[in-house]
């Protein structure tokens, strides 16, 4: 059996141990996400518009991530709408930033891996980078929006007469905890991701100046910072949706 198969079976066992039926759902969600990320790559490679493929698949991935790991209900709907709004804002930010920083494609550090390959594939790597950064922030945005909307809907359930100001305060309080949590996850993820690259820089005596202008380094940092911005924006967006729903007396 291949290594990946065995690890996947162990993961299923561990998830059942951790969450029973909920664990099975989380596992299925992960596998479905896997399929849709692959599909995104495949569809872009055959020449479909990277932007639209990513938008459609992102909505599907958000749907899976939010509804498969949670009890359904109003808070899941709020998280889903909130995540889509945040992702749209983030996309509006990603496009100008990537046009400015021009970090698409490969750098000199990749030369060994590129040997013998045709680089003229006719697909704009700028669009591939955009798609990569959008996909990488989905998980963090979904997690944050689920956490905040679950917390706030619970508060409303316990005390339906709570004032809007109190609700905003509680939202910001929960938000503060979420930001701390998400930052650890994102930045340690980044440290793990660029560990080999940082050792490379150090070993080959890159200067500070060449590191902060390096294509790959800047690209990885943009990825993490964009996700971080997405997580923070989730707080006001979710609070806004809940206040809006209260006004219309849905909540």
């Amino acid at each position, binding site marked *: 059996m291949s290594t990946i198969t065995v690890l996947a079976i162990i993961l299923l066992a561990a998830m059942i141990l*951790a969450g029973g039926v909920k664990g099975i759902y989380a596992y299925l969600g992960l596998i479905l996400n896997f399929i849709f990320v692959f599909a995104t790559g495949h569809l872009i490679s055959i020449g479909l518009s990277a932007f639209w493929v990513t938008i459609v698949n992102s909505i599907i991935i958000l749907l899976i991530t939010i509804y498969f790991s949670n009890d359904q209900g109003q808070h899941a709907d709020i998280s889903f709408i909130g995540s889509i709004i945040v992702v749209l804002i983030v996309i509006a930010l990603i496009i100008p930033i990537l046009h400015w920083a021009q970090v698409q494609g490969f750098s000199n550090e990749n030369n060994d891996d590129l040997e013998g390959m045709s680089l003229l594939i006719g697909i704009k790597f700028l669009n591939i980078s955009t798609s990569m950064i959008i996909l990488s922030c989905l998980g963090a945005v979904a997690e944050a929006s689920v956490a905040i909307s679950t917390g706030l809907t619970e508060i409303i359930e316990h005390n339906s007469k709570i004032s809007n100001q109190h609700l905003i305060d509680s939202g910001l309080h929960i938000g503060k905890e979420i*930001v701390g949590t998400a930052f650890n996850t994102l930045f340690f993820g980044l440290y793990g991701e660029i560990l*080999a690259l940082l050792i490379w820089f150090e070993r080959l005596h890159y200067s500070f100046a060449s590191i902060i202008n390096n294509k790959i380094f800047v690209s990885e940092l943009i990825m993490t910072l964009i996700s971080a911005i997405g997580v923070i924006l989730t707080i006001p967006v979710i609070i806004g949706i809940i206040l809006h729903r209260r006004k219309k007396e849905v909540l």
Partner: protein
Amino acid sequence: MKKINSKIHISWLTIFLIFLSGVGLILFSHYDSGLYQAPIGQIVSVKNGKSQKQVDQFNNIDYSTNQKLTVKILNGKHKNETYQLENNYSKSNATDLQYKKNQRIFLHVINHQKWNSKNLMIQGLKRDTSLIFLFWLTIIIILVVLKFKGSMALLSVIINATILYISIKIDVMTSINPFVIFTVLSIIFTGVTSLLIFGKSKETAVAFFSTIIGTALSLAISYLVLKITNQNGVNFEMMEYVTQDRVPLFFAASMIGSLGAIMDLSADITSSLFEVFKENPSLSKWQLFLTGRKIGSSIMGPLVNVLFLIFIAVTFPMLILFLDNGNAWGYTFYMIMSLGVVQSLISAIGIALTVPITSMIASSLCRTKVIK
């Protein structure tokens, strides 16, 4: 991050001042060419040639274009001199760039004796301003949304980055196995972060030990699986930026990459479980364990997805290049994605195992009295 109550609230005036200083910093970085050793030029004018159609052996159609750039030097002895440089770019921009007017670029001088257009090579774009802008934007958004409350999150990021930097120095200067160095680093990371979250308390000990046990267990299991299956279907050869032994480095990277998520999960379970116990001290150990497991299992799914999407998304450029170079799906998966998938699986196993481990440790320790 639970339980951090910074009492300092900053006023809008302070935020405005930070906003202004950021603008200053961004402007400064735009005009900081004088600080750089390498020559920097600004593109004054661009003349694009005719695009030429290129078809490669896989029938990919691309266009390549030659451009003539007039570049004004911004620093050094040759400041304000202009040179004519040439650049070739493709429509896809895999390794090349299409330069535009007003962009700033790094130049490489082949022969310092002779400064002329033939001796100058374009090395790449100056990207520091865009990076500083994004850092500034992130900080401003945190401050505006959360006032000062987000500062602990930033502090933890900065402290941990510093410790990481020191351990990379140690790794490069010594010949100690990188896995050993980064294991020590991870233990320090976990200690520092748990202390930042809970201060000196029982919760810190619970979060610390469950993170370490969860991470260690998932690494040990994965290592065994890799050994027993003989790394079947996993390609370490395509690991990027490798300057040393691959497998220890891979495990070190997987360990650090999942550490943040595992710490957050165990901190979340710990603080909620202690809270539940405080409100309801009559709960049995088993009931407390089940409560912890319930909290953990609902966070587990989203957390696993966060890391998975990060680890897989970064393979995208290489994945698409590989597919368009006439490679079959299975082979592409093996070459490009297998490592990212294994890394995601290692972290996912760690995250899942941390749920029962933290619940168990927290439910047995929350009863005991603190020994000081």
